[in-house]
């Protein structure tokens, strides 16, 4: 893999969104991944709808949580995703208002990534931003810099937040993952969280996945 890579510099990442008081991080993580995949296949960056998943993904629990693997399957079943503008985010579950006529992006399948962080980095650099999940304990009070909490604060088996890996690199010799979060731009570094890379910290390596667009 290259020493560093950041999909924000290559136009594959939409602006930071805000899930509000709703546990819909899984939807933001998955749409972020599909936005990147769609961009890499078609050359256009489109902001996609999370509300469609909150309302219409029957395999998941809307604001009470969900799983990226279920979301990919639901998107395949539904036939694709509408744009953010057409099916806007409200942060509350409502009845499904999806219409296939407004689909702008579809997926064909989904993949589970290796748990080796070096392989994840190589895959990301070659294929686009990756949906991941982690233990978010240290994130509540994070402001900036590269976060490297002690393991006792960040049990890798207590994964409770889905996010999007958009890049990686080193800052002052500290390797890190650049993570797009969904708590608004006033969180962390303009909405991003940087996590130490290389020691499977906070379980960041456990749930890497991506949609496939043929």
């Amino acid at each position, binding site marked *: 893999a290259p020493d560093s890579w950041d999909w924000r510099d290559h136009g594959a990442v939409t602006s930071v969104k805000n899930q509000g008081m709703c546990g819909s*991080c899984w939807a933001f993580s998955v749409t972020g991944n599909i936005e990147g995949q769609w961009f890499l296949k078609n050359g256009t960056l489109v902001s996609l709808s999370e509300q469609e998943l909150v309302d219409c993904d029957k395999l998941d629990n809307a604001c009470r949580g969900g799983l990226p693997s279920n979301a990919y399957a639901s998107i395949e079943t539904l036939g694709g995703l509408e744009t953010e503008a057409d099916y806007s985010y409200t942060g509350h579950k409502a009845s499904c208002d999806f219409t296939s006529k407004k689909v702008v992006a579809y997926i064909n399948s*989904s993949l589970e990534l290796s748990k080796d962080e070096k392989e994840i980095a190589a895959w990301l650099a070659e294929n686009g931003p990756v949906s991941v999940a982690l233990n978010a304990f240290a994130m509540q*009070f994070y*402001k900036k810099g590269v976060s490297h*909490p002690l393991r006792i604060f960040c049990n890798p088996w207590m994964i409770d937040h889905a996010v999007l890996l958009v890049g990686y690199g080193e800052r002052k010799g500290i390797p890190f993952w650049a993570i797009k979060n969904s708590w608004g731009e006033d969180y962390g570094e303009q909405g991003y969280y940087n996590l130490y890379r290389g020691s499977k910290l906070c379980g960041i390596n456990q749930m890497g996945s991506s949609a496939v667009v043929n």
Partner: protein
Amino acid sequence: DLDRPLFGPPGSPVKLLDSDPGLKKAVLFAEERYNLGTNAMHLRRVSRIISASKQLVKGIRYTITAELSNTQCKKSSMLRTCDFYPESHKLKTEVCLFEVWDIPWQGSSTLLRQKCHPAAESSPKETNSVDELVPPTSQALQEQESVKLLGMFKEFMVKYNKGYRTQEEADQRLQIFHQNLKTAEKLQSLDQGSAEYGVTKFSDLTEEEFSSIYLNPLLSQRNLHRPMKPAAPARGP
């Protein structure tokens, strides 16, 4: 800044009976501070409360007018149960106005104001400023920290446009905010990277609230995960 309301206008002053437990505590605190600030050999204690009221202002502000008299105890004896001199010898030394600011959720009290005058005089005069009264004890430092904490909380509320429905809720959020500052400090001191932790828009939420509102417990339940095909490793450099 102490006089400016933090959560809305202060409540109206309420007159108190001498038996009010909060008032008793405030009187003891005022007495203690009063004695620290005088050169008298004997302890003086409140022999009569002339009037007392309390007001909700970021805690409770007690306003007490009291008569203080000499006891038979020398200051050095540090006895709490000192008898007053018999009535015939009782020297009504002073009448004082005290303002005590009590913050129950922090277990701290501050003497905001003390005006005393000899019992015979008609109007009280300010004998000491708070700074002069109290040497910088650990209690004084705690009070400074309380004021700093309130300042930080106020800034947090303004920055993140936080509003609380009642004084009780505001008090509770302040407690949580205080606790979270300690957690952030712990994370900061033990962080092995270059991160900065501190006040964020989630600083008034308990860990449980934060988790139930913003996080996703389903992610850790492995048995719910739908199997997916493994991705082929990256091929090129």
